[in-house]
């Protein structure tokens, strides 16, 4: 389908206009009461022109960055694309909430806004209230969507002919696992090509790639995978707010069933959430047979989570071949590779000794590693050693990519390329033409000259009863006493553990690490909510270890990630809380 790039559209506004007359192109908002609200492309186009007028009236000019702090809504779509219409640059930022640490959020947001020299921030009245600290510390102009004049921009104020693929489509802030999030520039060409490469790799034809997405639109997977793919494909899109999905994960499956959708994409944790939060009785009501692509990306795929999800959804007629791990990052717009749709990808099991030495040797009892498939069209990739030597298949090294979907660089900053290649920051290898990811290069633990990848041990530890799943950090620290790198484990444990159980757990985790042949520095059991995560829910390994070293790792009263926070709420939900309170009061009464 990519074939001749000259045949592809050059700007998203042109695509939106074309969609006003395409039969299957539609946008539907689903609310938490399972009601659907159609939003036609004609309405979107009208709202874009109204929003564009608001931006111009607010002083926005071509080339200015327009920051958006808005929920998934018509307003997000209209102001996002309105910025593009007047050749300004939209940049979406994650919103604060009633339990956000507003000092920390304001500081981080101010830094993001300053990095792009944003002069206007578009939000709504509800969110504006939370921004009082931000308002006092910046000269930023706030525009609330409720204050729209509802007048369309005059035809003289924009020129559809001028819109081209060199225009900046949007700025994506990177996840910020190290330091503040960086503003990555994504051009119209980057976005359109990546979406076409994605559609080309999906089983359905473009106009049949009907999508449901609950991902936040300030995240690249939500913006490109969830929103722009069906827009550019001219297909159906059902949008769910992320907070509604976390509150009621069954909305996701209801949308698929009702609209016979084909494609969705989500991080690993959400597949686990579905298996945990929906009852076996409720599953029978869904029909997922229309789905041919349940994509899983943004974080390492945990094979136990996948197994549980597939097993759990069998009664809903889920085709296991539809599940596929994917790989990508903001710096490459979104997707780099997709797994094989025709078979559920069984992990490669690797001998741990050879693995630690950077070599791929299969061993049935070994470490499981999932393929993230073949490269999408437009990408080339290579694996290089730390010395810059290009490695062969079955040798583990640094993954580098190149292609027209790679971002031109940081906004008003440096290029992301070195010697023409983008270093992804990940370690991996090619095996029989497929790419495998081992982990982040900066997280590798080098013990006695051998490489060890924290995620495998974190997954093992997460499976132990009493340990909070996904709330584990494994890393290495230099121990002066032994003059060597040793393992440190930080693990959140369940609240209700007795002292005896905690002691037992401590011993179990100690033994697990020692059994792997690794030198152990310490296992630290932590209270719920102590470990720090990014706005997209990724554990910040280095930051957590640094805090532990400085004795500043204490129970955080605030979640610094709205999505993660909502995940915590979703895990307990109101019904469970009611039951717990009832049981607790009964116990108190009986004691």
């Amino acid at each position: 389908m990519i074939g001749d790039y000259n045949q592809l559209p050059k700007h998203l506004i042109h695509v939106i206009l074309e969609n006003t007359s395409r039969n299957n192109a539609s946008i539907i908002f689903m609310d938490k009461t399972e009601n659907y609200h159609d939003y036609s492309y004609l309405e979107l186009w009208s709202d874009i022109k109204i929003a564009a007028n608001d931006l111009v009236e607010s002083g926005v000019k071509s080339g200015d960055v327009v920051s958006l702090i808005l929920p998934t809504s018509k307003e997000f779509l209209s102001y996002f694309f309105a910025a593009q219409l007047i050749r300004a640059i939209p940049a979406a930022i994650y919103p604060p909430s009633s339990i956000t640490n507003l000092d920390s959020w304001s500081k981080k947001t101010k830094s993001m806004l300053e990095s792009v020299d944003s002069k206007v921030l578009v939000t709504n009245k509800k969110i504006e209230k939370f921004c009082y600290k931000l308002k006092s510390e910046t000269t930023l102009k706030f525009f609330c969507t409720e204050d729209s004049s509802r007048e369309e921009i005059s035809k003289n104020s924009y020129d559809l002919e001028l819109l081209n693929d060199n225009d900046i489509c949007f700025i994506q802030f990177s996840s910020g696992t190290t330091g503040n999030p960086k503003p990555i520039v994504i051009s119209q060409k980057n976005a359109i090509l990546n979406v076409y490469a994605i559609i080309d790799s999906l089983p359905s034809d473009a106009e049949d790639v009907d999508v449901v997405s609950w991902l936040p639109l300030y995240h690249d997977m939500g913006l490109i995978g969830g929103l722009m793919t069906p827009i550019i494909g001219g297909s159906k899109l059902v949008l769910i707010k992320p907070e509604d999905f976390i509150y009621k994960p069954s909305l996701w499956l209801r949308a698929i069933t009702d609209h016979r959708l084909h494609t969705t994409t989500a991080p690993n944790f959400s597949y686990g959430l579905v298996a945990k939060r929906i009852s076996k009785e409720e599953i029978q009501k869904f029909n997922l047979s229309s789905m041919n692509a349940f994509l899983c990306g943004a974080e390492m795929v945990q094979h136990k989570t996948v197994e549980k999800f597939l097993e759990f959804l069998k009664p809903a007629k889920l085709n296991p071949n539809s599940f596929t791990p994917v790989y990508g990052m903001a710096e490459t717009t979104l997707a780099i590779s997709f797994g094989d749709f025709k078979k559920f990808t069984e992990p490669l099991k690797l001998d741990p000794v050879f693995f630690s030495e950077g070599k791929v040797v299969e061993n049935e009892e070994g470490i499981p590693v999932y393929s993230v498939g073949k490269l999408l069209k437009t990408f080339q990739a290579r694996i290089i050693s730390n010395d810059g030597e290009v490695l062969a298949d079955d040798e583990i090294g640094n993954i580098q990519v190149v292609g027209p979907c790679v971002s031109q660089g940081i906004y008003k900053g440096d290029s992301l390329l070195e010697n023409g290649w983008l270093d992804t920051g990940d370690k991996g290898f090619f095996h029989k033409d497929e790419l495998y990811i081992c982990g982040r290069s900066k997280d590798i633990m080098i013990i006695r000259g051998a490489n060890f990848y924290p995620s495998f041990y974190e997954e093992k530890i997460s499976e132990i009863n009493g340990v909070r799943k996904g709330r584990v950090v494994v890393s290495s620290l230099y121990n002066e006493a032994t003059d060597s790198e040793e393992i440190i484990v930080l693990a959140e444990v369940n609240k209700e553990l007795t002292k005896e159980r905690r002691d037992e757990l401590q011993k179990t985790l100690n033994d697990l690490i020692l059994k792997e042949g690794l030198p152990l520095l310490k296992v630290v059991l932590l209270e719920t909510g102590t470990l720090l995560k990014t706005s997209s829910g990724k554990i910040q390994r280095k930051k957590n270890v640094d805090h532990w070293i400085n004795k500043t790792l204490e129970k955080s009263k605030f979640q610094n990630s709205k999505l993660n926070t909502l995940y915590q709420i979703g895990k307990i939900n109101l019904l469970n809380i009611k039951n717990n309170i009832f049981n607790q009061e009964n116990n108190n009464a009986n004691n």
Partner: protein
Amino acid sequence: MQTTETLFETFKNVLALSNKNNDPSISSERIAEIRKELDSRILPETPLAELGLDSMTMTWIIVKLEEELDVDASGISIFEIFDVQGLMDELIQLRD
């Protein structure tokens, strides 16, 4: 019928009691002390974010308020409510 003033008192009572959620061993005397401190610390215009609550405690509070007020608050989007007054306004609407 709950007035805004009595609702505010109920909210502070529940807020004080929520400390038991994080520390079941806390004494009734300490809860009473905390309750007294809240009178000077919490105003209707106090942002919820300044109460130092985590997501689980916030949900616990909502559930307790449901019981105290005999309402169903599951429709409240707690994360979008800015201040104590905003929460009380939502609860009053449920009662009416």
